[in-house]
């Protein structure tokens, strides 16, 4: 279900030629490999291939980085493989995203927890948006939430992920922050990807849309939809700068769909430091910032221990919310 949904950010995070500073590490990578836990063409696949290519172009790794597709279980098959069979591989990195954290939090990778791997760093984030159609009487997130509070049946919210997935959780987090006690009343309709969900908003089948900024961009530019809130800490740059954040409207919620990497739990500290620095340098380049600005992507500058803490916090938060709505017992 989420395959169609999650490639957008990855596609964007994929293209950059980056000048890495010459890293002087004790660790020398050999036959490097990146596992994309999905079929070719998906978001994780793009993340792997482009970061791999960048590393190769800069001569930071010997030869090409082998990209292995290991699909199944929404990333769970790859996660289990890394934990059980490749636990001490120093040359392996694996593409991950908010979807990985969400599924870990909801126990959708049976028997696996986030502590079984080492989290390397993020390469960017796509902040959530909540939008209505251009003809809607609703103009702000507060108005939307008031309407849901008054009559939850009157607003169907469309999103590109399954129930319990990231697009759904974003709107529930917003509802929770807006003081709606029983968020289960929020009517959510799951579609196969943000594009389909936006189309149904235009078609008038649903009243609101929850998704990522990059998914909404084409329709924001054309004026077909009205963004009522951006779920970012501060206003985004570029085309989205005209839209207020949820925080500005007194609803304290942030929803970032990040992209990054994890590595096997038994990776040596030298190798871990090497990969953290490499990914940090990919992220820091000017070309990368340029791409993010053009695509409604926002910075998320987290590597190493900071990134691990960030993932832990989001896993905890999603676990709590999933308990509240009964997805987790």
């Amino acid at each position: 279900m989420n395959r169609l949904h999650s490639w957008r950010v990855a596609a964007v995070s994929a293209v950059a030629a980056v000048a890495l500073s010459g890293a002087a590490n004790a660790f020398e990578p050999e036959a490097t490999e990146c596992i994309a836990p999905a079929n070719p063409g998906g978001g994780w696949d793009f993340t792997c291939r482009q970061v791999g290519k960048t590393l190769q172009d800069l001569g930071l790794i010997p030869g090409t980085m082998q990209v292995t597709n290991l699909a199944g279980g929404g990333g769970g098959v790859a996660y289990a493989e890394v934990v059980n069979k490749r636990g001490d591989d120093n040359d392996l990195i694996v593409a991950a995203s908010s979807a990985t954290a969400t599924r870990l939090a909801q126990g959708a990778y049976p028997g696996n927890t986030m502590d079984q791997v080492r989290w390397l760093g993020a390469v960017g984030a796509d902040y959530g948006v909540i939008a209505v159609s251009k003809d809607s009487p609703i103009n702000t997130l507060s108005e939307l939430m008031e309407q849901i509070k008054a009559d939850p049946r009157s607003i169907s919210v469309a999103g590109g992920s399954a129930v319990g997935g990231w697009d759904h959780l974003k709107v529930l987090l917003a509802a929770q922050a807006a003081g709606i006690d029983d968020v289960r009343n929020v009517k959510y309709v799951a579609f196969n990807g943000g594009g389909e969900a936006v189309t149904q908003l235009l078609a008038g089948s649903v009243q609101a849309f929850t998704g990522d900024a990059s998914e909404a961009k084409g329709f924001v530019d054309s004026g077909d939809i009205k963004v009522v809130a951006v779920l970012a800490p501060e206003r985004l740059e570029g085309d989205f700068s005209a839209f207020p954040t949820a925080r500005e409207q007194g609803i304290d919620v942030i929803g970032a769909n990040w992209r990054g990497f994890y590595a096997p739990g038994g990776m040596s500290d030298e190798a871990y430091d090497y990969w953290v620095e490499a990914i940090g340098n990919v992220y820091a380049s000017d070309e990368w910032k340029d791409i993010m600005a053009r695509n409604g992507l926002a910075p998320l500058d987290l590597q190493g221990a900071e990134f691990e803490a960030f993932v832990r916090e989001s896993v905890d938060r999603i676990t709590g919310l999933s308990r509240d709505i009964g997805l987790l017992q």
Partner: protein
Amino acid sequence: MSDRVLGGCGLLLAFFYIWQATQIRVSFISDPLGPKSFPIIIGAMLGLASLYMILRPDPEPVWPRFARLFEIAVAVAVLAAYAMLLPELGFVISTALAAAFLSWRLGAGPIAAPVAGIGISLGIYAVFHLILGLSLARGPLGL
């Protein structure tokens, strides 16, 4: 008779399917129809079609002799073994073995079969890995 057996299997499957559908755990969030209804309808459809086959079977097909059935069973086993050994032995070796076996069972001689197996394996490796760039299973030889 065969149709009746198939119908019987279909009926059992339908019961099992419907029973499994009723066992689906429903979380607190649910849409009006829920996750169970559609599978139950499908199970019912399967059951009805199976019932019809039991009552009005078609003429009997020609089943192969036991030796041939055994042959197919062995082929299934070999293919399953191939699937499991692929990550262990690597692509080129395991594919050569499996292709040689199939070729032999389909009538190639004791020399032609291994040659065909190796040829097929290397040919596919060239097209899929070297040209299309798919990552195939890497074995002890790096192939």
